[in-house]
C-alpha cells in the first residue's frame, strides 16, 4: 500500500513537471521570423481554417491560444538576449535590443516642399547655378590661407580698418566710417526682411504647412496660437492626458464646436442612472473630507481642560469651605 502511494505521488509529480514544461514549449511547423528591435514576431504558419470560421467562443479560444503561443516564442527569444541590471545592482534586469530591421510605414504624409524664394525663382529663370566656393582664401598680406569670413578672416579685421578712402563722387565732408557702418546695417536689415518675407510666403502658400505651423514673427492671430497650443498639448506620448495646464487655460477640454453650443443631458433621461451618478458624486465629495478635523480636536481638548479646571476648583472650594469657615470663626 505504501509503495503504491509513493508511486502515485511520483507519477503525479512527474505529470506536474511535464505540464509546466509543456506550457513553455511551443511546436510550430514553420519557424517564426523575429525582429527583436521592434519586438516583432512574424508567424507564417497557415492558421486552422475550420476553427476560425464564424464568430463565437471557440474562435476566440483558438485565437487566444495562437496569440499565447507566439508570445511565448517571442518572450523566449527575448530572454536569450544579453541582459544587464539597469541602475546598479538592485535595479531591474534589462535586455539590450538589437537594431530594428523592419521598416515601419510613415504615420503622416511626407512634408511638402516649400515654395521657391524670389532669388530661387530668378536663378531658375536665368539659369544661374550655384558655384561651390572654397572655404579658405589665400591672404597675400599675411601670406597664409585664411578663412573667407569669420574669425581671422582674409583681408584683415574690418573693425580695425584705420583707413577708409573717399570715393571720387562722394561728399568730402561725409564720414566714411559712419557710411560703411550704416551700409552694413542696411544690408543686414534687408537680408533679414527678405528672409522673413520668404518664410511668410511659404506660410501663406501652404494650407497645412508642417514646416512652419506658426507665422515666424508677429501677425500671429489668436486662433492660430490657440490651435497650435492645442496641437502641442496633444503631441505627447500620452496624448496630453498628463500635461499641466497653463495658468489661464480652462480645466475642461474645449468642445469640438468651439464653445458655440452647450449640450445637456435629456430632461427625462434615465433617472436611475442620474441618481447613481449623484450618489457617486456624494461619495467622492465625502471621501475627500479630512478624517481629523483640527478645530474639533482643539475644541475637545479645550472642553477637557475646562472640565478638569472646573473639577479642581470644585474640590478646592469644598475643602476650603469647611476649613475656611472654621478659620474664619477662629480668626474672629
Amino acid at each position: 500500500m505504501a509503495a503504491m502511494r509513493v508511486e502515485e505521488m511520483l507519477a503525479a509529480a512527474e505529470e506536474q513537471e511535464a505540464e509546466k514544461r509543456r506550457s513553455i514549449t511551443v511546436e510550430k511547423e514553420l519557424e517564426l521570423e523575429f525582429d527583436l528591435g521592434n519586438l516583432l514576431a512574424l508567424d507564417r504558419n497557415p492558421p486552422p481554417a475550420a476553427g476560425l470560421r464564424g464568430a463565437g467562443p471557440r474562435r476566440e479560444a483558438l485565437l487566444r491560444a495562437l496569440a499565447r503561443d507566439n508570445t511565448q516564442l517571442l518572450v523566449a527569444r527575448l530572454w536569450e538576449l544579453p541582459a544587464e541590471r539597469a541602475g546598479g545592482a538592485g535595479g531591474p534586469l534589462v535586455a539590450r535590443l538589437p537594431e530594428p530591421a523592419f521598416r515601419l510605414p510613415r504615420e503622416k504624409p511626407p512634408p511638402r516642399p516649400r515654395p521657391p524664394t524670389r532669388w530661387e525663382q530668378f536663378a531658375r529663370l536665368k539659369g544661374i547655378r550655384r558655384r561651390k566656393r572654397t572655404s579658405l582664401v589665400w591672404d597675400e598680406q599675411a601670406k597664409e590661407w585664411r578663412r573667407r569670413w569669420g574669425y581671422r578672416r582674409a583681408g584683415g579685421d574690418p573693425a580695425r580698418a584705420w583707413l577708409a578712402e573717399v570715393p571720387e563722387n562722394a561728399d568730402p565732408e561725409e564720414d566714411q566710417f559712419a557710411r560703411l557702418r550704416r551700409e552694413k546695417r542696411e544690408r543686414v536689415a534687408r537680408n533679414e526682411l527678405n528672409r522673413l518675407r520668404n518664410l511668410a510666403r511659404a506660410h501663406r502658400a501652404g494650407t497645412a504647412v508642417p514646416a512652419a505651423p506658426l507665422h515666424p514673427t508677429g501677425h500671429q492671430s489668436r486662433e492660430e496660437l490657440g490651435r497650435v497650443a492645442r496641437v502641442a498639448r496633444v503631441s505627447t506620448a500620452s496624448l496630453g492626458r498628463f500635461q499641466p495646464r497653463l495658468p489661464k487655460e480652462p480645466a475642461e477640454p474645449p468642445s469640438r464646436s468651439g464653445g458655440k453650443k452647450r449640450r445637456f443631458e435629456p430632461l427625462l433621461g434615465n433617472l436611475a442612472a442620474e441618481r447613481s451618478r449623484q450618489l457617486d458624486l456624494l461619495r467622492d465629495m465625502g471621501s475627500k473630507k479630512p478624517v481629523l478635523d483640527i478645530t474639533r480636536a482643539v475644541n475637545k481638548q479645550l472642553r477637557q481642560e475646562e472640565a478638569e479646571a472646573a473639577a479642581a476648583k470644585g474640590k478646592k472650594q469644598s475643602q476650603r469651605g469647611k476649613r475656611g469657615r472654621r478659620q474664619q470663626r477662629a480668626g474672629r
Partner: protein
Amino acid sequence: MRPLTEAETRAVFEKLQRYIGENIQLLVDRPDGTYCFRLHRDRVYYLSEKLLKVAACVPRESLTALGTCFGKFTKTQKFRLSVTALDFLAPYAKYKVWVKPGSEQSFLYGNHVLKSGLGRITENTAQYQGVVVYSMADVPLGFGVAAKSTQECRKVDPMAIVVFHQADVGEYVRSEDALT
C-alpha cells in the same frame, strides 16, 4: 428646464452638505419615489418624477416654478440656498440652534441672533458651520451660519452675534414677489 450639469450638482451638494452633512443621500435616494433636481431659469427645483413628467408638457416661457425651489444660481454661478428649502433641511439638520421667545421676532425680521437670544445650541458646533434655527417649541424658523463655536459661545459677552442670519420664514411675507 434641464438637468444640472456636473459642476452645478457639485455646487448644490456642497451647499447642502454644510447644513445636513451626509443626509443628502436621503434626499437623493428616497424609498418613496424617484426625486430629482432640475434647473429652470437659474433656479434649482426639487421634484418627484411624476411631477417632472407633467411639468415637461408646459411650455418654457409659461412655466413659473415646479416642485420645491431649493435656491438659485447667481450671475457668477454661485449657488444661494433660499428659505423654501427649509422643509427639507429641518428634519435632516445636523447642527441646530434654539432661539429664546423674546428674540424670535428679531430673527424673523432678518436680524442676526445675539448671545442674549440664544436658548440652546448643539454640542460640537464648529465656527462657520451651517445651522438650522428653531424656536423653543421646535418649530424651524430658518437657517444661518454659526458665528462662534459652542465653546466660544459660552464665554462670549451677551451682545455678540452667535448666528449669522441667512434665511428665515419671515421672508415669505417680506420678499413675497422675489420667491418663486
